[in-house]
Structure formats: structure tokens, C-alpha cells
């Protein structure tokens, strides 16, 4: 009787569910764990001064990161969306498209420190942007481009074919169809993808290590896109590895602020997606 129970379909289902729960927990628990550790260790280090003091606080680094992320989005969005529109709406399968796809996959696999060195060589030195907000944003834009392209392509693909056909059958050109029907309907997905991609860039250290970030500056806020900046991940990196006499709880508090900024961006993306999705249903 017990043997039959173990091998029955209900038992199999129970085992399968258990495994799925374990898998889900394996994803969720570490995130919660990391957050908990940071809150516990860092909460004591959080203070008004740490957050908002320009000289000793994190405000310039938060501002620097926000500037960096915004500029990254501004650079990556037009390039990424244009590439996605080309791939999804215009390109016919062939060697060129295959080459582009292989490049994208490989680009996505390049370690971020390589992007940093590439950015140093191209943007900082060859193009003479200097170690600056612009050089850092360009480097990060390259890093997130594959993500932006694939997210945008996915969003474009979600637009039903029959809407494209309706537009073409009315005598619209391909471009009129893209502009009038496809892009507006793909926009929620594109924006969400963009925010999620740049929120990843917000936490990157290596690409801005040689291209944009400083640990302390005479002018703590960037004055132009060619200005030098402070950035949260770099701040944390230096605090954790080089700077002497930084209390542990300040390091943890900095980490907490960084994570909050990144999660905040993700939250914006999630809320935006939910809202825009509700607005258009087909």
C-alpha cells in the first residue's frame, strides 16, 4: 500500500511541486538575505549627514550615478530601438542578420571590465572626452546596448501581425506602419526594457573605473557632460578596498543606498509597465 502511494501520480505531483518550490526559494531567499544583511549592518551607518552632506556624504555620488544612468539611457535608447526596429521590421533573414545576432550575443558576454578598458581607449583617449560623465555614459551605453536591443525586439514582436497588416493594407509604407502602429504599441515594453537595462548599468563599477568616476573631487557635482563625477558603485568599491578608516557600517550603508537606487529604478519600470499595459489591450 505504501509502495503504491509513493509511485502514484499524486505523489509525483507533490514531489514536482516541492522541487519547484525549492527552485523558487533558491532565487528569492538569497535576495532577501542580502537585503536583510545590508539593512541590519548598514542601518546604523545611515544618517542625515551621510546621505545629504555634500562634503562627507553620498549625495554627490547619488547625483553622479543618476546623471550617468540618465545619459546612458539617452544614448542607448535611440541606438538600441533603431537597431531593434531594423532587426524586427526590416531585415530579411540572411548572412548580415546572422552576423548582427552573433555580434549581439557576444557583446552581451563580454566582461564589463573589458568595456571599461575599451571605453578608456576609445572615448577617453581617442575621442578625447577625458575621464568624464560622457565617456562613462558612452561606455555604459555600449554595455547595455545588447540588452536594450533584445528587450526592444521582444516588445516589437509582441505587437500583433494583424495590426501591421491593417496598416499596410491601407496603403501605409513600412516606415509609416512602424511609426504609426508598431512603435506606439511596443513603447511600454521598450521603456520597461530600457529602464531594467540601465538599472543594471547603475550598479556597474568596472566600466566607469577608468572612464568617469573619481573618489573625491573639488567640484563634487558634474558641471557638464565633460565633467568628472562621483558614482555610488565606485565610491563603494574604493571604500571597501583602498580607503582607510571607513567604519564598516558606513560601507554597509553605502551598499544599501546603491541597492535602493537600483531597486528603485526597477520598481519604476514595473509600475510603468503595469500602467501602460492596462492602457492598451488588444
Amino acid at each position: 500500500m505504501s509502495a503504491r502511494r509513493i509511485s502514484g501520480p499524486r505523489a509525483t505531483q507533490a514531489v514536482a511541486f516541492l522541487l519547484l518550490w525549492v527552485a523558487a526559494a533558491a532565487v528569492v531567499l538569497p535576495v532577501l538575505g542580502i537585503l536583510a544583511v545590508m539593512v541590519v549592518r548598514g542601518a546604523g551607518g545611515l544618517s542625515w549627514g551621510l546621505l545629504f552632506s555634500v562634503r562627507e556624504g553620498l549625495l554627490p555620488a547619488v547625483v553622479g550615478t543618476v546623471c550617468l544612468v540618465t545619459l546612458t539611457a539617452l544614448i542607448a535608447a535611440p541606438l538600441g530601438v533603431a537597431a531593434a526596429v531594423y532587426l524586427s521590421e526590416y531585415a530579411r533573414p540572411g548572412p548580415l542578420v546572422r552576423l548582427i545576432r552573433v555580434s549581439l550575443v557576444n557583446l552581451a558576454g563580454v566582461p564589463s571590465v573589458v568595456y571599461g578598458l575599451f571605453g578608456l581607449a576609445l572615448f577617453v583617449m581617442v575621442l578625447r572626452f577625458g575621464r568624464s560623465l560622457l565617456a562613462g555614459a558612452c561606455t555604459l551605453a555600449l554595455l547595455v546596448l545588447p540588452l536594450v536591443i533584445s528587450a526592444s525586439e521582444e516588445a516589437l514582436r509582441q505587437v500583433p501581425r494583424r495590426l501591421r497588416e491593417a496598416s499596410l493594407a491601407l496603403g501605409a509604407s513600412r516606415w509609416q506602419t512602424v511609426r504609426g502602429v508598431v512603435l506606439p504599441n511596443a513603447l511600454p515594453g521598450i521603456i520597461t526594457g530600457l529602464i531594467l537595462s540601465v538599472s543594471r548599468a547603475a550598479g556597474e563599477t568596472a566600466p566607469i573605473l577608468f572612464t568617469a568616476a573619481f573618489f573625491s573631487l573639488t567640484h563634487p557635482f558634474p558641471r557638464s557632460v565633460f565633467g568628472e563625477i562621483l558614482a555610488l558603485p565606485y565610491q563603494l568599491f574604493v571604500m571597501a578596498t583602498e580607503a582607510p578608516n571607513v567604519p564598516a557600517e558606513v560601507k554597509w550603508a553605502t551598499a544599501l543606498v546603491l541597492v535602493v537606487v537600483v531597486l528603485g529604478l526597477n520598481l519604476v519600470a514595473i509600475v510603468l509597465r503595469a500602467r501602460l499595459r492596462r492602457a492598451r489591450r488588444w
Partner: protein
Amino acid sequence: MAERVITPEGEIKIETRDLSVYYGDFEAVKEVSIALPSRRITALIGPSGCGKSSFLRCLNRMNDVILGARSEGEVLLDGRSIHEADLDVAQLRRRVGMVFQSANPFPMSVYDNVAYGPRLHGKPGREALDETVERSLRAAALWDEVKDKLRQSALELSGGQQQRLCIARVLAVEPDVLLMDEPSSALDPTATFRIEELMVELAQQYTIVLVTHNMYQASRVSRYTGFFLLGELIEYGLTVDIFEHPQDRRTDDYVRGRFG
């Protein structure tokens, strides 16, 4: 053969000569020659996959959009080939409008749906556009139902209303020909009836080619009927003849409901 494919009386709007359609290696339409009369409804019937929709999509070159699709043979619109190099496909599609199987309004307002076509082809003034929208909606027998909700999303309309909106959207670009690809197959009987009424009404002004696998619909609304089977045009003639005195045994079997 000759008695099975007739030439209709009166003016001919569209004529195809040995028109074949291929998807890759598959020949979906096989050397179809047919003449479609102006300002009449011509129905194309046949079981699923018989090539009638593929044939229809050749008439406004919507097959061009499908990857790997190509066609051979000729399509003449008012005596002129639609494959000529200097022909503007956008202009062709304006003249030969299409209504699809499932209503496909854009996720925008009722007004913007109808105005979409006119806006593509120029910058109509506010008043001219209002007038076009109203005229098109009236012609599609939808005006009275939507005149108070022109700014609402088209997706809030019922299925039948959506399909009539799609017809209004096509009428707004002032075509000569309406290609209708099973326009009521997703609708309930009442909505279907309204679409059929509308088609009969529109046939006074427009040349309508109706693909349907509802034989009763074909017999109710059309003047001429063509029967397709496995990519071939088996028989073409007056609808009464096709349904009451079919010459070909396969047509006879199909219209009597012995297969399909």
C-alpha cells in the same frame, strides 16, 4: 473547360491570367484566370486551405509582405498590370482595400482608426477629416452607434462593431475595390447579418471580392461565385448556376455539403 469559367457581363474591374502563388516550394494557387465584374459582389468559396485567401491577397499585393511568398502570372486592375515596375504599391492598396478575417482595429480611438488612412496620404484639415470620418462611418452603418464615442478606444466596441469600423477605415481612403477575407467568420449571426446587409449596400459603389467558407453567405449576397479546390479555380459563374446547376462534380459535392 470553357463552360466552367465564364466571363461576367458588364465592366471588368480585375482580371487575373494564369496567376499562381508559391510559398517556398508549395504552390498555393495554381494558374487561376478569372475576371471579376465591377460593382458586384463576387464570392470565392472552397474548403480551408484551398488557396482562396492567398488568391485574394494577390489582388492588393499583400502577399508581398509574407516571407518566401511569390507569385507568377498577371493581375490586371482596370486593364493595367499591378506588377508594373512604376506602380506604387501604396497607391494600389489604397484603391484595393482589404477587410480581414478577424476585426483588427488599432488600439486607438474610433475617430483615429478611421482617420488613420487619410492622415497617411496627406494632411487633411480638421473639418475635411471630420467629414471623411463621418461619411465613412455612415457608409459602414456604424455612425449612429458610435457618434457619441468617437474618442473612446475602438477596442471597447463589440466584435461586429469593430468589423464595421474596419470597413469604415478602409472606406475612408476611398478605394474602388473591397477585398473581404471571411469578414464575418468570427461574428455571431446578428452581426453577420448586418455585415451582409452592408456588403450588398456597398456593392452599388464598390467592387467586392468576398472570400468565405460559408456557402449560404455566398449564395445570399453574391452575384458571381468561384469555387476553389487545392489551389485551382474549379468553376466560376453566376451564383445561382454554381449553387443550382454546377457543371463540375466536385463543385456539386461541395455546395451540397458532401465535403469541406
